[in-house]
């Protein structure tokens, strides 16, 4: 399929889903899964995002944050993780029993460690 064709079908409407393994950093994901094993249970239903307190004020999205972690996209994660209020609503709606608050806390710790070169 040529580029012109793909444009016609609207493939460029969404941001690229391409995972760049050169910039992907798995250490954060490993650190988080170690600290909060239930992170692996997330099946990206988005329930947490629908109820999120912070999400009503800004574009914060926990489901997207989880995806960043899984893909090892550290740069957007850095900003995303700051916005959660740890209020715990998501914890109560998550159908998979993911300990969401601790995922956020662990992600914040991971970013801190990354900055101190400890990860």
């Amino acid at each position, binding site marked *: 399929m040529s580029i012109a064709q793909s444009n016609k079908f609207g493939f460029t409407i969404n941001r690229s889903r391409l995972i760049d393994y050169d910039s992907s950093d798995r250490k954060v994901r490993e650190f988080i899964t170690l600290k909060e094993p*239930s992170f692996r249970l997330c099946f990206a239903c988005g329930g947490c995002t629908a109820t999120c*307190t912070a999400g009503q004020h800004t574009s914060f999205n926990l489901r997207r944050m989880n995806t960043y972690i899984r893909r090892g996209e550290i740069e957007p994660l850095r900003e995303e993780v700051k*916005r959660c*209020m*740890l209020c*715990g609503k998501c914890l*109560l709606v998550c159908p998979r*029993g993911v*300990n969401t608050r601790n995922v956020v806390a662990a992600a914040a710790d991971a970013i*801190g460690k990354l900055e101190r070169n400890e990860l």
Partner: protein
Amino acid sequence: MNSELFTLPFNLGLYFILIYSVVRSTVWFRNLSRSDKLRLQRGFFGRPFMDSLREISMESLLHLKIFRKNPVLGYMHMSLAFGWFLLIVFGTIEADFFGEKHLNPPSHAIFFRWFNPDHGAEGFAGIYSFWMDLLLAFILSGLLLAIIKRFTPRLMGMKKTTKHTWTDRIALTSLWLIFPSRLLAESFTCGVHGSGSFLTGNLGNALASFLPAADIAPWFWWLYSLSLGTFFFLLPVSRYFHIPVELFLIFMRNSGISTGDRHSSYTEVQTHACSSCGVCISTCQMSYAAGIHDIQSAYFIKGLRNDRDIAGITANCLMCGRCEEVCPVGIELGPMRLIERRQGERSDRTLKLQEKYSLMRRRSTLERRPTQSYRYLVREEPEKADVLFFAGCMTHLTPSVIVAMKKIMDSAGVRYRFMDENGGVCCGRPLMLAGRDREARELINHNSDVIWKSGAQILVTSCPICYKVFRESYYLEARVMHHSEFINLLIEEGSLRLGYLHKKVVYHDPCELGRGSGIYEEPRAVISYVAELQSSEQERNMSLCCGGSLGNLTLSSGKRAMIAADAARTLTLGLPDELITACPLCKKTFVQATETKVSDIAELVAAALPAPRRENAKKRPARRHSRATSNG
């Protein structure tokens, strides 16, 4: 027989511990904040000093609190502490009275029998010897219990005793040896001289009848002195350091010093005042309901004392406050955990012996930097209102509670504004519980701004978590009320007309509302007004945690469910029609854990509201009509 060399270990130990105690308490005092220093100085010349003396005699000597909880355990502590105290006091009097001269050095009182072997054969001295023997027997009976407890903790009604370090073990052995060796030393000496009362006299005679008592006696006097000396030397590095430190703690507390929000002399004194009694362990639901046995406050304090990496222990706690409620020493365990949560990482190391003697610990922590930031929040311009209703994040997950509150306030004619109707900002308490106080401040400032601008007189919230932080960490003019208090006020004012529901209900005290904020009576008054209130096994200050607590960041959902199931079982033992709580989080948690209907107190009250008859009659056909048309 007059060689005094054997008193050397005792004397060295005694003077060591006296000097050490004085120096260390001076260092603690110097490290207090200026205001705390003033408090302590003022306390020394005022009532607090007398109160402390009373408390010391009630708790440190008689151990009345433990006694009430568990008489056998109480007797054990009492016989050892109070018995030893009396033995020293009366021993000193004895030496002063019957000895060669007045004002003897302490060793003459402690080893009185050695220096006066013939004393106490008859008359008043005989009665005195009888009394001294009685005291020794009192202590020995307690010691026997302590040994039994060590090896079979279950017999003493304890689920688990704490583990010991090797210094603890040596100190413990020397403590155990003190009184048996005194008994034997005195008995052998009495056996030789035909003196002594019912215990030492009889035992002495029996032993002397077949043993060379005169040769053996000095050995036991050496053992007695050595075990005393060893005990004194190891005291600062063993768990028994709590004995002198507790006295200091009582005095500090009575002078009005409290934990505050960072490590200080006071937290240091508290860590050392823990007696590792283990009462907190058997109270903790994490232990008996969720099978997690290594995070309880006894272990937390021990880790702190030994400067271990306890981040995992610190985080894995419900912050329910039950342990603090039962701690016989009165350590502020909740605030201590929060301080530790605020700290950054702590490297895990084992303290060297000499470090344990050090006068003020330097904690190896790394300052935690803020991670969250809420600059995206937009300042609001709220409408003016007398009553402001803040549902709270959790209440938004139980919309029926909001509906009930609206009904109640409308029925009472309250003019209110719903502050977070379209989703508000979190109150900040969950962040604080996670040790992120600086981030919480941002949310607190945001919400305070809205509340101040609204000009409200009363701020009503449906969530105990919000309630606690509004009361403690916000600077507000408005009176903060939990909805149970507010409903109670409405009932008392007579602005709510309520029917009586013919139901038996049981009430669950939410941690943050009950133990956390001391609200026990208002919810009960409200419930009793509309239904029959049953009592439950563990209520008020000993109420159970539902397991849903936001205080625990790491607990898995499975373990939470175990705690919830256990708590719900205890609460519904009396087969109530409904389980009433006053917290949306408790409600959400219990709904999944029990068959019994779970309601919030607001829902119960809303159900007791009389149906608005006339309006209803008018509205009903209209509604049916509209539904019919929309369906058609």
